[in-house]
């Protein structure tokens, strides 16, 4: 490809929106409108004739490089199938605290966990596992969090009382945590 076509490809790749031809001319002050048009033609032909997974299209008065429609389905399927997302240890611990201590405010979770949990709370909320269930009395009336019906559904619980008692759990799990951790350590762990 010509240098100008390569520059246009890079610019269109990096732009978040379709770029009108006159904005593209700002890329190279020496390039005439005709030269820009010719380079766009060249890029378009290259994508079409060399068999690329992307194409150059004119949308809303601007130019944009897009993935070809025939691949969309496979891409979305792969994105979903690739890795069921796992909660990070931080998210799990926060969720556990909320399940057992709800309604609970952010400050209390942070005090127990010793770290900022703002982003974790946001992720858990986006996942629909927790929700705001009220406000505490006192300064600033902080939000209180609790678990959602989706949380129960996820663990096939009918109600929260079906969770085992925390003190039993600590004893029962203590011997097994290590085994279980080593069994799952090979799996990938995405942060929430």
């Amino acid at each position: 490809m010509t240098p100008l076509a390569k520059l246009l490809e890079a610019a269109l790749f990096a732009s978040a929106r379709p770029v009108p031809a006159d904005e593209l001319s700002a890329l190279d002050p020496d390039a005439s409108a005709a030269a820009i048009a010719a380079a766009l033609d060249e890029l378009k032909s290259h994508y079409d004739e060399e068999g690329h997974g992307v194409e150059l299209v004119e949308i809303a008065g601007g130019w944009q490089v897009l993935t070809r429609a025939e691949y969309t389905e496979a891409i979305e399927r792969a994105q979903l199938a690739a890795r069921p997302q796992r909660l990070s240890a931080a998210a799990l611990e926060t969720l556990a605290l909320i399940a057992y201590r709800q309604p609970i405010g952010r400050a209390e979770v942070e005090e127990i966990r010793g770290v900022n949990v703002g982003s974790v709370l946001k992720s858990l909320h986006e996942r629909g596992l927790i929700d705001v269930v009220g406000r505490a009395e006192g300064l600033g009336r902080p939000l209180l969090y609790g678990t959602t019906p989706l949380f129960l559904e996820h663990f096939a619980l009918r109600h929260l009382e079906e969770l085992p008692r925390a003190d039993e759990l600590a004893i029962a799990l203590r011997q097994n945590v290590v085994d279980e951790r080593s069994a799952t350590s090979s799996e990938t762990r995405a942060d929430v």
Partner: protein
Amino acid sequence: MTAIPPEVFVAGSTFPLPPGLARTDGSGKDDGGFLVELTSFSGPLDLLLALIRDEKVDIYDIPIARIAEQFLLRIHSLGLNEAADYLEMAARLLRIKAQLLLPRGETEEWEDPRAELVRRLLEYQQMREIVDVMEHRADERRRQFARAFLPDQPTPPQAPLALSLSELLSAVDRVLRFGRAPNMHDVVARPLDVPAAIEIIRSLLALRARLQWTDVVAADAPPWQVLSALLGLLELARLGELRVAQPRPFANVEISRDPDDPASEAA
């Protein structure tokens, strides 16, 4: 990477932002010293290294009196009087200076009071070398743009969440052990029956060499039964009586007698 001659100490400690790129968010909010340095030095060791470089002295033979004086001058002129980190270093320098003035015993082994400071300076300098490498890499990466346009997705696809009850309960356990004494004993009251679950699993395994999770726990079993079975299974696995495998995420858990267990051959 380029080797830095030992006598050339890490030069600038400032990371000037290119014009127009500083504070582009315009928020002006406190960013925790993250993007813009409060001073041109990232800490007292950085300042100290700059002085050693400026004064052209040997790091292994630091003239402490001179350097301490310069250090105090600098933190004064930089308006760093409030910075506890710098004051602590100033105090340390003065302490070393005082120690150097003490008469040395002739026979006893003498340890240079500057040794610990030199060690820390070298350690810091080594870290600065790594920072230089990393900064260079980050700058290279910043010169390349990633794909910015991402098509709108009406329903943002979220990957299915792989989250098991055992993971959640392990997290409870971690919080209990590591957390700052949360009281989590007062919510729930359903007892588990792990011994009974273990008996059930043992009985099933006596009949069949291989089981699936769904053989052990009915699909509509209440969670306390699921949990009891899970904990029982883990306990038996720990004892080496059986093996648990899950061929892929979400697949049925396969349970088999431990092939190394001679008792399993007889059954």
